[in-house]
């Protein structure tokens, strides 16, 4: 290890320190690569996710290569609907997609049964991956599990439009679906924690004001999140997957979550002020633009994010969606990693001079 890469904390210590709203040795980087593991192993995305051994090796290689401060054994979102009887459509160059809805009409909810996590071969592949990663890194690196929120899962279970109709027009069936989904999500999240996950990323994009008004969120998504997170036996980070979150940031904090994944469409400095040290921020590098960044742009974006949200801790640098697109080249990922190493070290004494030299930057 040369001088430029020496840090005094493990990834776990670094992450826990910032989540405590204190400054660690440097800003933690959660480089949330999933599909890139298939590239590392020279496999198709479908083949890669078909065996836990592939994802274990993929995650370890990615971790070594990009020096992210977490391992991310997330396969793909629709793996959860596979447990409900659904299927998955694989793309050659993007995240696997959910197949036909398992709830074809609202009446199907009346006879729907919540599946048992340990009876799902797909979910067991994820649990095996987490266990193996845990055996490899112990307590030095956070392992981030993923659970789709009970409130957002119906988008895959029944389709977006049908779910919005249910939400607004059929409160009793909506309530029953939430009860089923909450039981599943709690069981799934706790199984991942039992397998060795350090924390659970609770993906809840439907709750974003991009999708529903705040008033609806307070009556529905927030209540679901409060009940669910209270039963998850470990820390959670809530991610709204690129959706806007500023108007409900403190509402999300009230659900008991430790961090919120925030959108590139919102200003990190404004989000940091709004968070009031009640919740940490995870974000918000633009994963879509990242595809065509130069290494110099990547460095600038890292500096900008750190300048806006790094001071005082409570900040983990990550992309804004919770998954870096397949199309992002490794040169960009390497540049992000190098920039964090160079500019993320506390105390962040370079910020004022950089702001003075960067008139387009507004904090």
């Amino acid at each position, binding site marked *: 290890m040369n001088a430029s890469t020496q840090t005094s904390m493990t990834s776990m210590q670094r992450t826990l320190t910032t989540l405590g709203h204190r400054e660690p040795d440097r800003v933690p980087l959660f480089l949330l690569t999933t599909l890139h593991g298939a590239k590392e192993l020279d496999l198709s995305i479908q083949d890669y996710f078909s065996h836990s051994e592939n994802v274990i090796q993929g995650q370890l290689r990615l971790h070594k290569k990009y020096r992210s401060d977490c391992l991310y054994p997330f396969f793909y979102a629709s793996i959860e609907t596979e447990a409900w009887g659904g299927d998955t459509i694989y793309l050659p160059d*993007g995240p696997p997609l959910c197949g036909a809805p398992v709830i074809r009409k609202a009446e199907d909810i009346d006879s729907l049964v919540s599946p048992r996590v340990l009876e799902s071969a797909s979910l067991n592949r994820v649990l095996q991956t987490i266990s193996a990663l845990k055996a490899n890194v112990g307590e030095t690196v956070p392992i981030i599990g993923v659970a789709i929120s009970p409130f957002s899962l119906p988008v895959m279970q029944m389709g977006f439009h049908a779910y919005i109709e249910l939400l607004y027009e059929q409160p009793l069936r909506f309530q029953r679906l939430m009860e089923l989904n909450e039981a599943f999500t709690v069981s799934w999240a706790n199984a991942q924690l039992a397998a060795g996950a350090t924390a659970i990323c609770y993906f809840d994009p439907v709750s974003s004001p991009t999708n529903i008004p705040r008033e609806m969120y307070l009556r529905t998504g927030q209540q679901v999140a409060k009940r669910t997170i209270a039963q998850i036996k470990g820390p959670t980070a809530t991610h709204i997957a*690129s959706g806007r979150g500023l108007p409900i940031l403190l509402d999300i904090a009230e659900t008991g979550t430790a961090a919120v994944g925030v959108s590139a*469409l919102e200003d990190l400095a404004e989000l940091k002020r709004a968070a009031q040290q009640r919740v940490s921020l995870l974000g918000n590098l633009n994963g879509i633009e990242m595809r*065509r960044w130069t290494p110099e742009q990547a460095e600038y974006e890292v500096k900008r994010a750190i300048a806006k949200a790094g001071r005082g801790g409570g900040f983990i640098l990550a992309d804004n969606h919770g998954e870096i697109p397949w199309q992002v080249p490794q040169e960009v990922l390497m540049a992000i990693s190098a920039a964090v190493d160079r500019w993320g070290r506390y105390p962040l004494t370079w910020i004022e001079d950089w702001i003075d030299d960067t008139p387009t930057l507004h904090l």
Partner: protein
Amino acid sequence: MQHYTSGFELFDYGRLDVDQLVERTIADRLRVLMISVLILPSALKVKQVCSRLKDSGADVKVVVGGAPFLFDAQLWREVGADAMGSSASEAVAIVGRLMGDMQ
């Protein structure tokens, strides 16, 4: 919904692949093709649609929308679209402008 009340004759194709979309656009002699996508790979496929429509000589404008285009302001030009709408109401206004330009 705003499209249905906009006064334009509307064809809702649902989900199609590139081949199907190009074929139907030409067969129906569309004046404006609106494509909404959710993920980046789908956005990048619009480039094939625009290219093939141009090669066919079809007199059609392509308007795109959806998350990838919102997050990357240069993407709609990169894929060869004629315009990008950031909301349904904006898309209606764009279609009105394009139809006016083509008359």
